[in-house]
């Protein structure tokens, strides 16, 4: 696990609760505990890897009163924006134009950094009359690797609307006819071909004059228009034209009447006997024929310009047209859009987090963090008795968490701090020995205690009563006080710390013989990976009284009086990563 010792993970039981939905009631009745409640959480279980999260990664659903981990939230896209120009793109545009920026944002096809528009005009002298706007041809240039559209022979007339301009220019500067022009040309060719009797000869004619193969989008548009025309041919031959309508069961007039009354049945009949569709048979119809000349050209290119001229795999992958092979075929790739997402509870669809819709803002409108609802457990060795907030890294305090002495009693200080505004009663439970091969003994000296409410910091400071501290009142006597069972160690405004007594188990390093079945779980020094990590599962149960929420208070019910208090309970498993046990010398 990635966090340095000591750490605390919180378990989200979303998988288990989903598996056992009817029994997953809150523990309002502790004595008749079912199997699920009986089972102790095993941090060594491979499945636990997916259930344990640091507190900071967790959200909290106020309706379900449960922790929500990344596995049990639903994400929904709020809006799309370009990370380069920070303009929001409406979702209707996403459907029609795709998920790339349609403004001036482009990424370098060589190194993926975002490109800038530069002018080719030499800089004017400042004394000249400033017209403000830049003049002259423009080009896209990568500020990092210095690739520019001049490398592929593309210049722009204006510095805005690059996408529209780029769509009209092929590599090398030739102008691409617009879609309408292409349609027109296609129709013209179509008519011309209709005049010709033999369509077969047409292919050879067209192939011979096609020196460079058509671009992929041309092929696509040709093919799609061809298929559209085929479909419309098939549709026109349907019920309303009685001559072509030969149905097996009904006369055409009947089918026409049926068609008037119910469109569904007519559709069925349509599917019964589809008109035969032919495949594309010429370049104009979208037929792409592999030619050996293009292969020869590629080989010549390789011979002439060498390996440097080819693209790497990732460069090729970033291209819109992924069939390109050479650097001269590169196109600047429009910037991919990003999304802002909200999170909802998977169970009740309650919104858990929602960022502000404004693109430039990084703040959140709603953010229900688990750290605001769940007590924070933090652990440190008692011998390293320095107040936590002043020293961020506890390793600097002299206690070596990664070399725990086996079979020696170590005291840890478990501090529970309460983020709620009500005092909380906490009950802790842990198995007396940890699971796994290395059996360590764990004793919670004070398993049940209270934690004060998270009141205003000033309340305590201004109140006339002296600081209520249970155990040692000042740090000088802290070391001298005895560790005593059933007593809390120290108490503050909204936190309480207790002592955890741990006797790390002995790692039996060299066994004489390993028995067959056991062998595969052990590596060379006879220890499964991370077996020496001491992790303590702790079951935390919280009880507190809080005001009855407004939406919970049904208007008809008399049992809950308005403004009344309600007893609440929550429970979860957490795992304390205490340290690594040192092997016996």
């Amino acid at each position, binding site marked *: 696990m990635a966090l340095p010792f000591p750490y605390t993970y919180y378990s989200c039981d979303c998988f288990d609760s989903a598996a056992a939905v009817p029994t997953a009631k809150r523990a309002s009745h502790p004595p008749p505990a079912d199997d699920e409640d009986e089972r102790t959480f095993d941090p060594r279980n491979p499945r636990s890897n997916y259930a344990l999260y640091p507190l900071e990664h967790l959200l909290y659903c106020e309706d379900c009163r449960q922790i929500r981990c990344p596995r049990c939230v639903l994400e929904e896209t709020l809006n799309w924006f370009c990370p380069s120009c920070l303009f929001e793109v409406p979702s209707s545009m996403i459907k029609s134009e795709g998920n790339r920026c349609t403004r001036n944002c482009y990424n370098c096809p060589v190194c993926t950094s975002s490109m800038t528009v530069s002018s080719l005009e*030499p800089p004017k002298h400042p004394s000249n009359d400033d017209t403000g706007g830049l003049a002259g041809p423009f080009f896209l240039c990568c500020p990092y*690797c210095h690739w520019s559209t001049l490398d592929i022979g593309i210049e722009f007339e204006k510095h805005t609307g690059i996408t529209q301009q780029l769509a009209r220019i092929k590599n090398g500067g030739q102008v691409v006819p617009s879609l309408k022009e292409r349609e027109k040309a296609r129709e013209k060719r179509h008519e011309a071909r209709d005049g010709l009797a033999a369509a077969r000869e047409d292919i050879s004619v067209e192939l011979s004059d096609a020196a460079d193969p058509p671009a992929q989008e041309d092929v696509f548009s040709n093919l799609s228009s061809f298929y559209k025309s085929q479909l419309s041919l098939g549709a026109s031959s349907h019920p309303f034209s009685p001559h072509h309508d030969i149905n097996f069961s009904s006369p055409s007039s009947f089918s026409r009447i049926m068609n008037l009354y119910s469109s569904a049945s007519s559709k069925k009949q349509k599917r019964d006997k589809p008109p035969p569709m032919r495949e594309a048979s010429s370049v104009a119809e979208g037929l792409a024929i592999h030619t050996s000349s293009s292969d020869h050209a590629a080989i010549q290119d390789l011979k002439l310009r060498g390996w440097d001229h080819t693209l790497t795999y990732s460069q090729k992958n970033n291209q819109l047209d992924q069939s390109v092979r050479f650097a001269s075929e590169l196109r600047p790739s429009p910037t991919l859009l990003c999304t802002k997402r909200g999170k909802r509870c998977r169970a009740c669809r309650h919104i858990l987090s929602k960022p502000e819709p404004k693109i430039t803002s990084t703040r959140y409108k709603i953010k229900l963090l688990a750290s605001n609802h769940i007590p924070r457990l933090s652990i440190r060795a008692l011998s390293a008795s320095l107040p936590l907030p002043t020293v961020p890294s506890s390793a600097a305090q002299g206690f070596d968490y990664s070399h725990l002495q086996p079979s020696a009693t170590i005291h840890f200080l478990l501090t529970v701090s309460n983020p709620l505004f009500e005092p909380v009663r906490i009950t802790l439970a842990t198995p007396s020995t940890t699971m796994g091969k290395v059996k360590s003994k764990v004793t919670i000296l004070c398993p049940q205690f209270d934690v004060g409410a998270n009141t205003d910091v000033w309340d305590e400071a201004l109140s006339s009563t002296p600081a209520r501290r249970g155990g040692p009142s000042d740090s000088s006597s802290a070391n001298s006080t005895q560790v005593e069972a059933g007593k809390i160690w120290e108490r503050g405004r909204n936190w309480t710390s207790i002592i955890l007594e741990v006797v790390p188990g002995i790692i039996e390093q060299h066994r004489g013989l390993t028995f067959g079945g056991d062998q595969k779980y052990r590596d060379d020094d006879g220890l499964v990976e991370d077996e020496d990590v001491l992790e303590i599962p702790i079951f935390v149960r919280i009880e507190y009284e809080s005001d009855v929420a407004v939406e919970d208070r049904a208007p008809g019910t008399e049992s809950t009086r308005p403004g009344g208090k309600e007893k609440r309970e929550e429970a979860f498993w957490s795992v304390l990563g205490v340290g690594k046990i040192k092997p016996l010398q």
Partner: protein
Amino acid sequence: MSATLTPTPPTPKPRPTPSKRASTALPRPPALNIDPSALIAQHASLAGPHPILVAANVVLHPHAKISSVHGKVLLGEGVCVAERAVVGVQGGPEVGASIGGVTPPTAGVVVGNGVVIETGAVVEAEEVGEGTVVEGGVRVGRGCDIGRFCTITAASVIPPDTEIPDFTVVYGNGLRRVDTTLKERTDLQEMRLVMHAKQIEVYKKLIPNNVGKWMG
């Protein structure tokens, strides 16, 4: 304090300030040739026993360091050296290592016209060609030969004795490509030099010149 000092005879202090500066801790180069049109900021330092030539319109930003401890340094016309950048062969174990134990006088560093050396870069190269840009945090090892109009992108490390041909862009993790745009368009090359000259004009307006300290 001042009362106690007044009775003591005033000690002759001909040049009090320069002697205190850290930059003049090393001996002032015996052959320091500085063009009067150069711009040397207050905290820039030029030091070392070997000759240093600073050509016209050179800009040395504050805390730029030109060191000729292990060999001469020639800065061409319009060279810009940014803050904390170091030009000159640095001392180190490799000095003797190259030729068995005997410390040879290195060839020094020759920086071509219009070269820009950005913040924190260390240039020990034998030669840096005209119009090259060495970006921030770059380390160019000794004995390197960098061509004209190259770009060494930020934080790159060029190992010693590397030859980098003209118009090369060193980017990413040691990747290289030829800047074909600049190579084929002489007008862009000229534009780059013109822009650089303008930049120097701006620097001359912004940075207080302390070249007088190093002259004469």
